[in-house]
């Protein structure tokens, strides 16, 4: 598969291996796929299928053992500093555990990139930007509320807003509904899959929930590190098995 200049991110024959003691575990086994701008992709599979390792490679959090990752038509070089820079500029991440600072407000959590010096704007503009992204997830009115006083669904929406702060080309959400109830899961999924339209960014969602996966433009199923199904027109029982 060749990397297209139009793809937000492309993986080419990516292999991700881990050493556990004296054993080498191959979590991702030669996967090639791409995500186009304004598209959404759901990555499904059972626990241990390699989903998180796949998106870790896609999100430049983990360097592949072999193969290549392309971002915006350019191959991502090896080296942690360059990868960190590309990650800061192009990729937003949402985690199952939210990872929000509970004593800070929603606005202040969204500003985390700015506080850490990853956003090259002044404070006033940064605050405006934070409130804009909170608006995208329907929480502008709660910008000044401390996260500790928010529900699980609201917290995950704040986490999504934080990931959107630097207007990334790609947002990756790893099991974003894992800690939410059904109603909040549905709402968060709606927001995530609406982002290509609302925020002009591609979205990749890792989930084991087929109801969440159904909202994506495309679905990839992993099993033992390999793609076993690809496409939305799959029987739901195949996707969920």
């Amino acid at each position, binding site marked *: 598969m060749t990397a297209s200049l139009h793809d937000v991110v492309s993986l080419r024959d990516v292999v991700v291996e881990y050493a556990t003691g004296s054993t080498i575990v191959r979590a991702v086994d030669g996967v090639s796929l791409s995500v186009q701008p304004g598209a959404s992709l759901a990555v499904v599979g059972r626990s241990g299928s390699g989903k998180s390792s796949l998106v870790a490679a896609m999100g430049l959090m983990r360097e592949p053992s072999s193969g290549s990752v392309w971002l915006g038509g350019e191959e991502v070089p090896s080296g942690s500093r360059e990868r960190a820079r590309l990650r800061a500029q192009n990729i937003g991440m949402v985690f199952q555990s939210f990872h929000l600072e509970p*004593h800070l407000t929603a606005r202040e959590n969204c500003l985390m990139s700015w*506080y850490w010096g990853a956003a090259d704007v002044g404070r006033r503009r940064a605050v405006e930007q934070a409130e804009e992204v909170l608006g995208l997830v329907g929480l502008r009115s709660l910008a000044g509320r401390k996260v500790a006083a928010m529900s699980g669904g609201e917290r995950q929406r704040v986490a999504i807003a934080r990931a959107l702060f630097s207007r990334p080309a790609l947002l990756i959400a790893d099991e974003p509904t894992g800690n939410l109830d059904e109603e909040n899961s549905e709402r968060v999924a709606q927001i995530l899959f609406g982002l290509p339209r609302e925020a002009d960014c591609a979205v990749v969602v890792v989930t084991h929930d087929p109801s969440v996966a159904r909202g994506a433009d495309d679905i990839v199923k992993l099993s033992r590190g390999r793609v076993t199904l690809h496409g939305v027109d799959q029987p739901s029982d195949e996707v969920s098995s």
Partner: protein
Amino acid sequence: MSSVVRLVVLLARRSPLRPLSLVILTAIATVVFVLVSDLSRVSQEGLDQAIVAENGVYGSFVVTLDSGLGLTAGAESALVGQAARAVGVEQRGYFEDMPSTRSECPPFQAVGDQVLRLLWDAPGKPTALPFGSVDGVDTQWCIGGQTIPDSALFYPSDSQRGLYQDRLYLAVAYREVILLATQGPVRRGYFVVSRSDATNPDDIARAVQARVAPFAELMGLDPAGAVQVARSSRDAQLVRAASSGIAIVYNVIRWGVLLLAGIALLSFQLVATRQRAWFYGLARALGTGGPRIVLALVVEVVGIVTIGATVAFILLVLASAQIESFASQAFQVKARPLAAANLGTTAVGLAVIAVAAGLLPTIGVLRRDPLEVLEAPRD
């Protein structure tokens, strides 16, 4: 860089219990360190002064040269000084013992012959002595028809005899009066001080003999016999060792307090960074480089230590008058807790703590895989 500092300040404001506790800990440790440092200083100074008064300056020797060498005081002083430097001791002035005389005035006419001593820091520079202090003795020394007033005499009290010995000292202005009235050689002795128990007086003697040898040969004298070196201070080894031991104990206490505070601060920071591993993992996931994370941790600790030290300084300033008054009344010593030496040492100690407690936790933070900490369940 300033946005990282803002973040540190914001987190401290929103979750103040931990930083506040550490500020209080630092302030208490600083106050204790300063007070123990000054207590150590006054105790040590007082003890050392008492030892010197009783026993003389540690490692003191007197070098006497045969007057038959025909050397002036300046020449002798120069030779002894050269010899002293060669063996690593310090020359500290000299004395002149005037020829023995008998006072013509009571009560000293009954005392018999006395030798009056003059003390010099260097040729032409008399030592400042508390003339007029004659330990209550009714003194008038009359010689050659002239009365020497007690304001020109100094007789050491009991507590001074360790340093000045049991002698009558005469002001330099009356030197010629004695010489005119008597016949006899002036005997000079040169003080050298090593401050060490290990100094061998024979080494000093040999060094001086080597330098007076040409003059001795000229005058037909044996160089070995022309030089005498005698110990003038009392050994008092046990007392001096006790004084050194007390100084060590004080140092252990004060640095121990600061070290414990540093260990407590470091422990707090290690626990905090471990509990908040996700926070730093998130920062790295957001693309933050190691130096900014190190900066955040160091700024936090430096801020805590600086504020704690400032609080301590304010407390000491407010209480310094009371501390000095208490020390003066209770122990008859002059306390100076805000002395520059105390504050300087404290600043150095706190700086070392701040750097260690700021930097050491960063090792763990930067070594952990950010993905692992973000995927791990939060406490």
